[in-house]
């Protein structure tokens, strides 16, 4: 059996092992990996997500037991310090030697740190590993300003990360423009103003001469004599291959470093391969993951004697991600090809710049730049890579056709060989075949089975377009049906239930579904039934999500949270005391929420009814925090107390919260009312928000905080309270009737043809003539309101449900809590793997 040693356990190393194991099992090749970092391979491309999630688990390329399952020995925290090519051994930093038949060097690269006076000071960081990020995060806690050295792709990403760490962020670039390798001056200018509008300052033409400060950095000095007052510096000035092992092994290097490799990724020692950022092919280092994956596959094939293509270089097209400004650069972006003709379009008003370079014979697209709008990126890249014919008026490619005739290049014109996903090397043909042969009707399924779009994600829109186009060609319309048990969309089911008067899940499944249902359709139908009939949610308990079934949010460890309604955030001292008393009695953790109410956590299932009885006796109602329904209407203190207040925002918020409380919707709903334009209630970040004006209120809708924040849009301005409520009734009901399950209002609006203007036509101008019906439907829901907890505690049969054991009153003996800052917290997750 042959023994392969892989040095480095980064993304490319992992891909190599994956490819090797799909070609040959563990009976022919033994694989041992030495990795310097303490974690198994993780997704460096999405490293910046670590700033928000701080979870290594989410970044791992494979769960830690994968290596074991594949019979691969992974040694983390082990640095290889030299190679003996005669003996075919490697030496670890601990002094151990290990023998190989084949050696694969996947040592990646390290950040290039320019020689600047003082770069060794505390407060200067690089941006490459999880460890780097941990250090940046902890250092950022105590400072206010941070700068990034380098205005390339990665530097801009790092700057956004600093901004997200609440630092005042600057980017310093030596060149006269941003992303100098990908953008021309006009592109850079557009990008610069877009990034500056995010709050990141950009300094161009700056040659940094010194990092000031004693042992801790305290600012930067530039060659032109100017200075920058900042407390931290993240260096992102490019990469250098980690080719330290070349000397000991007598391996040749490329002109700019890296292990020199041939088209099979072999170094000058045929038993030693190099892949990824460590490899230099034709003196080129590829600092992107897709070429690295290509190399991994070719090397795996070559070692195992499989016929394979050869490595011929790779495309360096890229898209900027994560930072909220769209930038794409592809092919010959700067028009370096002799005779190439640039065509550009600039719109300073919307921050859009597009440029394409066409060949001197005007037949082919060579490359281009897109800033502010990259929706054409996928198609233009394909046209470039496949040398497809371009339209007679090439400007149509970036301007669209003006004058009727289509420009001919649609997704369906792409050749089957067009590579769509470069990370996973999936062609258009692969996608189409998968759709046809496996009858795929779900985009997620397509991504799972082909891997397309699972890497850097840049190709996702194109995968989606090919999917829709292919289904359409096969005569299928793409309908978002609920799940395998119902061949209907949520909106279709809404009509069916309403028109046929269906009252239970089973009735619906018998008449319109098949099989026994599942965890997708049950709660979706439960929500529909509730939205249509506002019937007691407890009646059909087993189709509800556990939160709805037990009228409380389940938390880690199986305890529940208790959230009484506090309309508008107004609460009397008596009620505060009542909450305190209950929380103390049942040993609950208490926290004030973002929605201006008080959450009590850690309630045992058996105690829920007792807790609620006491709360209800004190005058509280269910807060529906467990349901897909109205949460809170946040209010500022308004004209009663505030010297700026124009109207009484608290009273109005209470009125609105009481109006819509308990109504079930496709997803949760949040509202806000502010007493003046200062907007202390953050109403524009809510599903609906009202802001007082001199003349009345401005009504905003479809805002969203959370993962994808989106400002609410103005639906109607300067309207009186009664009109605002009329519009709200219509708006909410229209949303409830037409949204897909679990789509918040913002997502729903983004998908609505015609957007906010269309919504305004429907709600304000009543263009569909359904205004009155919507109001009537809403009125019926409002009239059917009941406090679910009040009903539950008065129903003996229902009460039985609130017991951990059905045959005993015992509490769950496995439930455990520990303590933190004088209150309790659940014991951590425990994970078990095979």
């Amino acid at each position, binding site marked *: 059996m042959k023994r392969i040693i892989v040095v480095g356990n980064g993304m490319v190393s992992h891909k190599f092992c994956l490819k090797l194991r799909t070609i040959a099992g563990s009976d022919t090749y033994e694989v041992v990996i030495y990795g310097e970092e303490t974690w198994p391979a993780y997704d460096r491309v999405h490293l910046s997500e670590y700033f928000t999630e701080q979870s290594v688990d989410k970044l791992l390329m494979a*769960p830690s037991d994968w290596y074991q399952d594949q019979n691969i020995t992974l040694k983390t925290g082990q640095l290889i310090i030299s190679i003996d090519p005669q003996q075919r051994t490697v030496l670890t930093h601990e002094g151990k030697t290990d023998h190989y038949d084949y050696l694969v060097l996947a040592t990646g690269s390290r950040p290039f740190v320019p020689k600047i006076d003082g770069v060794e000071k505390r407060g200067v960081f690089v941006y490459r590993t999880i460890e780097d990020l941990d250090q940046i995060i902890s250092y950022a806690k105590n400072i206010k300003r941070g700068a990034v050295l380098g205005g390339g792709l990665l530097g801009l990403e790092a700057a956004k990360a600093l901004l997200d760490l609440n630092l005042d962020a600057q980017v310093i670039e030596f060149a006269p423009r941003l992303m100098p390798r990908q953008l021309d001056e006009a592109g850079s200018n557009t990008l610069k103003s877009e990034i500056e509008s995010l709050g990141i300052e950009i300094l161009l033409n700056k040659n940094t001469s010194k990092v000031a400060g004693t042992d801790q950095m305290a600012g930067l000095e530039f060659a032109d004599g100017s200075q920058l007052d900042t407390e931290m510096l993240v260096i992102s000035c490019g990469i250098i291959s980690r080719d330290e092992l070349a000397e000991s092994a007598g391996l040749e290097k490329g002109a700019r470093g890296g292990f020199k490799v041939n088209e099979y990724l072999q170094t000058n020692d045929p038993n030693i391969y190099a892949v990824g950022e460590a490899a230099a092919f034709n003196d080129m280092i590829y600092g992107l993951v897709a070429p690295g994956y290509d190399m991994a596959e070719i090397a795996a094939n070559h070692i195992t004697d499989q016929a394979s293509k050869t490595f011929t270089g790779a495309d360096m097209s890229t898209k900027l991600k994560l930072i909220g400004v769209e930038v794409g650069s592809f092919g010959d972006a700067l028009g370096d090809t002799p005779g190439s003709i640039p065509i550009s379009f600039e719109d300073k008003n919307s921050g859009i710049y597009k440029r394409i370079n066409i060949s001197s014979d005007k037949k082919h697209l060579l490359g281009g730049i897109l800033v502010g709008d990259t929706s054409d990126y996928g198609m233009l890249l394909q046209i470039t890579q496949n040398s497809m014919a371009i339209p007679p008026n090439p400007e149509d490619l970036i301007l669209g056709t003006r004058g009727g005739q289509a420009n001919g290049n649609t997704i369906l014109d792409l050749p089957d060989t067009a590579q769509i996903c470069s990370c996973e090397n999936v062609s258009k043909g692969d996608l189409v075949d998968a759709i046809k042969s496996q009858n795929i009707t779900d985009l997620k399924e397509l991504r799972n089975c082909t891997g397309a779009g699972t890497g850097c994600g840049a190709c996702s829109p194109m995968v989606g377009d090919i999917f829709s186009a292919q289904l359409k060609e096969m005569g299928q319309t793409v309908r978002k049906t609920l799940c395998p*048990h119902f061949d209907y969309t949520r909106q279709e089911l809404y009509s069916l239930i309403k028109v046929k008067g269906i009252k239970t899940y*089973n009735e619906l*499944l018998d008449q319109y579904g098949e*099989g*026994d*249902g*599942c*965890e997708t*359709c*049950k*709660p979706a139908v439960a929500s529909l039934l509730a939205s249509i009939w506002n019937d007691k949610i407890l009646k059909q*308990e*087993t*189709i509800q*999500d*556990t939160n709805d*079934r*037990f009228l409380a949010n*389940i938390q*880690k*460890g*199986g305890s529940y949270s208790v959230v009484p309604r506090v309309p508008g955030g107004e609460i009397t001292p008596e009620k505060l005391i009542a909450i305190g008393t209950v929380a103390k009695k049942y040993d609950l953790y208490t926290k004030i929420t973002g929605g201006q109410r008080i959450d009590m956590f850690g309630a045992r299932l058996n105690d829920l009814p007792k807790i609620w009885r006491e709360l209800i006796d004190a005058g509280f109602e269910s807060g529906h925090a467990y349901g897909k329904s109205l949460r809170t209407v946040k209010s500022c203190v308004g004209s009663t107390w505030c010297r700026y207040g124009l109207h009484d925002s608290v009273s109005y918020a209470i009125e609105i919260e009481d109006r819509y409380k308990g109504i079930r919707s496709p997803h949760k709903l949040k509202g806000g009312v502010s007493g003046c334009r200062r907007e202390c209630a953050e109403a524009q970040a809510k599903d609906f928000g009202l802001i007082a004006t001199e003349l009345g209120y401005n009504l905003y809708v479809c805002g969203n905080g959370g993962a994808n924040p989106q400002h609410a849009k103005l639906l109607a301005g300067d309207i009186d309270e009664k009109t605002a409520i009329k519009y709200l009734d219509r708006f909410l009901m229209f949303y409830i009737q037409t949204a897909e399950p679990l789509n918040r209002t913002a997502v729903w609006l983004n998908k609505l043809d015609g957007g906010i203007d269309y919504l305004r036509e429907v709600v304000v101008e009543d263009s569909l003539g359904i205004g009155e019906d919507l109001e009537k439907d809403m009125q019926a829901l409002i009239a059917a309101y009941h406090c679910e907890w009040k009903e539950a505690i008065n129903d003996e049969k229902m009460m*039985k449900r609130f017991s*951990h*054991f*059905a*045959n*005993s009153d*015992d509490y*769950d003996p*496995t*439930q*455990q809590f520990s303590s933190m800052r004088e209150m309790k917290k659940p*014991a951590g*997750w*425990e*994970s*078990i*793997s*095979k």
Partner: protein
Amino acid sequence: MTELTTYKTTTPAEVSKWIATLPADEFPENGGLNVKVEDLQIAIFNFTRRNEWFATQNLCPHKQQMILSRGMIGSDGDEPKVACPFHKKTFSLKTGENLNGDECPIATYPVKVEGGTVYVGIA
């Protein structure tokens, strides 16, 4: 914390005693209850639509939560399954196998209804 190893799939042939739990009509339709069986927590499901009963460990192997009885049941093709309420990992009610991931399987136990009472079989 309860060891996952406490729970072992029991085949009808291995049953050494049948433990009476609750009257069948106390179980919700198409849903489950958690019962204390000696030191074990066993989830028993009344799959009314299929006219079948199933029993599994109550412990979800994903994050070791005592919770499966509170999950929704349904089918995947013809395979009856339960979905953990925490992260929607689904397990076959017949074989205990994890259907949408690679969690380890859950233990299953034989159930029978006699004289209106639900019995679960343990080894």
